[in-house]
């Protein structure tokens, strides 16, 4: 029964992520004064990629890379509360596990793309793992402010304690939430920090050699990752509520990121890490300081 429920959640989240991606493409098209693709375009892309005839593999690890990424993101779904519905696994400290699981996917991609031995892929991997030093730190520090205040490290408890609308963590912890939002931009690879998959610069980075079914799997991974990453932010800062409000909130956070993506140029990797370790770091540290004073 639990397994069946989880599969339903998995399929639902995947469809939701693909839908978000499609609406985001439409939305950026409207910002650029274009008509844009239909909102179900990402479904078509995935179907097409999965139906490709021959796919070139560069070795065992190359084929396993997307599988590892996909597995990592599915595992992280176990720990993600969807609104008021309790996640499959929740214990004291599961937020650390969730952070750890989010790292599996980039590592899997790095192992897989590394075997392709394409210089563009290598540059993309190096940038991705370096950028991680930036956004992981900031996101973690902004979550720590909440953890210290509530004296718990369980994502489910954080959702439970903060409750619905006027009691959102966003209002008391606005400094941390702001830093978290900046970290989320990098985590999702949206524009000031889209240097991992910079298509005009390094030909879509780690994905440069992936084709056909592997690329389809990576698209599915990306769709789930959108919901998991925005969901993480929503759970920590935007409170609980029914599943419907969870969907609305993740949608809003994602659309905010896409809008920022559309009006920003791209950082170089050095600039990106420098930026992260300067202003968002100060903001998130101030957020922790505020918690200690307020206590």
């Amino acid at each position, binding site marked *: 029964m639990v397994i069946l429920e989880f599969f339903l959640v998995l399929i639902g989240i995947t469809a939701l992520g693909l839908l978000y991606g499609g609406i985001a*493409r439409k939305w950026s*098209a409207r910002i*650029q*004064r*274009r*008509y*844009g*693709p*239909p909102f179900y*375009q990402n*479904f*078509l*892309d995935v*179907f*097409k990629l*999965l*139906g*490709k*005839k*021959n*796919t*070139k593999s560069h070795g065992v690890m190359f084929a396993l890379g997307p599988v590892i990424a996909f597995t990592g993101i599915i595992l992280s779904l176990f720990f993600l509360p969807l609104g008021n519905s309790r996640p499959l696994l929740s214990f004291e400290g599961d937020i650390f596990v969730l952070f750890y699981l989010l790292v599996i996917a980039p590592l899997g991609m790095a192992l897989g793309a590394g075997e392709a031995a394409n210089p563009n892929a290598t540059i993309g991997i190096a940038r991705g793992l370096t950028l991680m030093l930036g956004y992981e730190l900031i996101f973690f520090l902004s979550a720590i402010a909440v953890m210290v205040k509530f004296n718990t490290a369980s994502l489910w408890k954080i959702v439970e304690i903060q409750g619905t609308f006027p009691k959102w963590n966003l209002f008391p912890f606005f400094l941390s939430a702001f830093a978290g939002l900046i970290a989320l931009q990098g985590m999702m690879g949206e524009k000031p920090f889209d240097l991992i998959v910079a*298509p*005009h610069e390094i*030909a*879509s980075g780690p*994905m*440069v*050699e*992936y*084709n*056909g079914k592997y*690329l389809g799997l990576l698209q599915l991974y990306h769709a789930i990752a959108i919901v998991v990453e925005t969901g993480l932010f929503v759970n920590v800062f935007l409170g609980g509520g029914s599943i419907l409000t969870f969907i609305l909130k993740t949608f809003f956070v994602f659309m905010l990121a896409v809008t920022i993506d559309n009006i920003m140029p791209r950082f170089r990797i050095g600039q990106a890490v420098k930026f992260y370790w300067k202003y968002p770091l100060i903001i998130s540290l101030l957020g922790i300081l505020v918690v200690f004073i307020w206590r």
Partner: protein
Amino acid sequence: MGLFRWSQSRSLWMMHFCTGCGAVEMPPTMTSRYDMERFGIIPMATPRQADILLITGYLTVKTLKRVVRSYEQMADPKYVIGFGSCTINGGMYWDSYNTVKQLDLYIPVDLYIAGCMPRPDSIIDAFVKLREMIAKGEANGWKRYRENLEWYRTNQAKVFNVEKWSAIEP
């Protein structure tokens, strides 16, 4: 099978191999004015991920080597669009010693866009036509290439002035 073919016709990722002057017509086709993304067609950075290979303009013998190589790196099903008169009969380079006159001899072309230069309207028109052809199962240049590989290889070797030529294996 129907679902896959339908989604294939609705989602085409394009690698525009910008040779010659044809490349200048691509930016207006991609951007706000003519917006080809509304047909699900977006430019892709690498041949591995692409479905359409768009050859914009004349090909020198040297470039043709790269084109064949890129074409063979693409995953089936894949489609080639010849863009402009140069790919059909050489166009204004008809008497040049160094350009390829007829692209169809070396890689299978599914669709030609005539004109020098074709306007973005006719490029969009070609994409819509290709979409219909894929939905009906008529765009099978990639099958032709597999079936007549020896013939294409002979033609390629002849123009490259070598005994035997193969794109993937050096």
